[in-house]
């Protein structure tokens, strides 16, 4: 790390990546910025609209609701998946044949196309047909996710927990097995109880890995689209319409270029700032 030499020719090595990503990122982004400051009445005629769309979006009830729902969803999902993933990783065996089996099975949900995830939980939750529906109704609770917002939220959160917790498990597990045995041995010799071992040895050493897990889960949950779209379509009503779903409705559904573009920029900026915030907060202690 410290022995890097200065060499501007390195740009040649980086150029292909820069070009390809720029093509897929900067060009569309410029298009979006373009649309966000213009107004069109069809026939490809554009007039300058300044920050008009931005104001529209930022003041719209619709945007506020979608943003609020999104924040609640991300918070819920983080609050469940991070501790749960960590807990499962802590209880996993370190050696033996079961390790591979467990890891493979746990990785499966991560590799299922997101629409299939949505379909799976669709099938699980359908009234009269789905296993989940059957179990919940069997417990005496009236459950119908196509009609009840609470049921829809419950199902979506459960689906996301099912889908992504394994990522936290795998990351945490990798962090745990990299802790040298000597630390556990020293703790034994010092007479430390299991909780102390967790608090003073494992948790500090997992800081880096948990930061990555939190960042990844926050970003991805904030961008969620497919699974929710397939399962509830944003409904019932718009009770599960999160930011991406709303945006796609406006952009590809209604083709409202201006508002869609402005919303896109705001959306992207929110993610960037919140991610940066998370990152700085979690990294702060490392310097101290």
């Amino acid at each position: 790390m410290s022995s890097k030499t200065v060499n501007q020719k390195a740009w040649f090595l980086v150029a292909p990546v820069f070009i390809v990503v720029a093509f897929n990122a900067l060009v569309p982004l410029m298009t979006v910025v373009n649309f966000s400051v213009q107004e069109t009445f069809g026939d490809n005629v554009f007039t300058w609209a300044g920050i008009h769309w931005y104001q529209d979006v930022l003041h719209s009830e619709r945007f506020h609701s979608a943003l609020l729902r999104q924040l609640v969803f991300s918070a819920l999902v983080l609050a469940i998946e991070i501790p749960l993933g960590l807990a499962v990783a802590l209880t996993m065996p370190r050696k033996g044949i079961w390790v591979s089996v467990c890891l493979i099975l746990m990785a499966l949900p991560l590799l299922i196309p997101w629409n299939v995830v949505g379909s799976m939980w669709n099938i699980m939750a359908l009234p009269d047909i789905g296993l989940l529906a059957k179990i919940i109704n069997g417990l005496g609770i009236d459950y119908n996710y196509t009609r009840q917002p609470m049921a829809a939220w419950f199902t979506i959160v459960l689906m996301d927990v099912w889908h992504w917790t394994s990522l936290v498990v795998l990351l945490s597990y990798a962090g745990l097995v990299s802790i040298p045995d000597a630390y556990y041995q020293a703790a034994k010799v010092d007479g430390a109880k299991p909780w102390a071992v967790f608090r003073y040895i494992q948790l500090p050493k997992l800081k880096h890995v948990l930061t990555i897990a939190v960042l990844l889960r926050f970003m991805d949950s904030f961008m969620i689209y497919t699974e929710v779209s397939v399962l509830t379509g944003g409904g019932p009503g718009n009770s599960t319409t999160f930011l991406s779903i709303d945006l796609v409705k406006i952009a590809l559904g209604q083709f409202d270029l201006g508002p869609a573009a402005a919303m896109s920029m705001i959306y992207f900026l929110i993610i960037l700032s919140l991610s940066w915030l998370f990152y700085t907060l979690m990294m702060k202690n490392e310097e101290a």
Partner: protein
Amino acid sequence: MAKISIQNLRHSYLPSPDPARSEDYVLKKLSIDWRDGGAYALLGPSGCGKTTLLNLISGLLVPTEGKILFDARDVSRATPEERNIAQVFQFPVIYDTMTVYDNLAFPLRNRGVAEVEVDSRVKEIAAMLDLSSTLGNRASGLTADGKQKISLGRGLVRSDVNVIMFDEPLTVIDPHLKWQLRSKLKELHQRTKRTMIYVTHDQTEALTFADEVVVMNNGEVVQSGTPIELFEKPKHTFVGHFIGSPGMNVLPCEVKNGRVAFAGQTIQAQNAKSVKPSQNRLEIGVRPEFVTISKTGIAAEVVKVADAGRFRIVETMAAGSSVKLLLHEDATVPTGQIKLTFDPDHTQVYENGWIAGGTA
């Protein structure tokens, strides 16, 4: 503090070793007695089983066969906590999120010691280790030797510790700080009179720290004794090689009519009378310190002269074997053909590696 006894200890890492195959075992039949309050070293090359032995004594491993006794109490299956031991590892093991003070206090607090006593013990140990000024700092901010001191401190802070074990603790310490820490360890031993067992592959560390050194090779004890004994009367050629820099000269020899001969010359050796003619491999061992250039004696040719500071190492060839000797830096450097004499009081005959006539 306790007297520690190892009785017929054998250990294998395999789940079901074959008792008849000694290769299955990392430790092959050891019996050692360590008296209370002594400073001991376990010295040997990598892979000789010394770390395994250490972990068996501390309770991190359960022995396959044999017993470990602390003061006549069988602890072979007791946990590390039950044995009241302390261990310092190769790299510093500290609790990063705690201060130096809390690190040292940790073992005491876990055992429910009253806070007042914790405070006095921690301050006492910190003073001994020169850590007093850093007590309020975060442990993660200290240098490697500071952290090792904390590790050591956690062992010293408990008053009921039977033995403190060190597993190559100076490995990550900067060379110029190594001797400082080494002296500190010796000093601590003299002050606290705790039983200390120090595992290392570095002979300097072992010989300067310990009252008694146990030399191990291939899972067995080769020789156990004071540093002087090991130096002057090695019981095995391995000990001769391993200890001293440069190591002992080991030369093939023959025994004829009660006389030991090398390079056609009769050699006077300490234990020449104990040697009976047999099929065993015979060698004589003599340290370079006890080889001198003389007018008559064994014919040798000077091959190389190396400068080692206060003295010079002269490497010669005699009858096809390499013989090294030491010369004071002021002496004239020899060249060409010379004659060598071995000091009879420090020349031994070895049979198959072991000293002839001595206890194997």
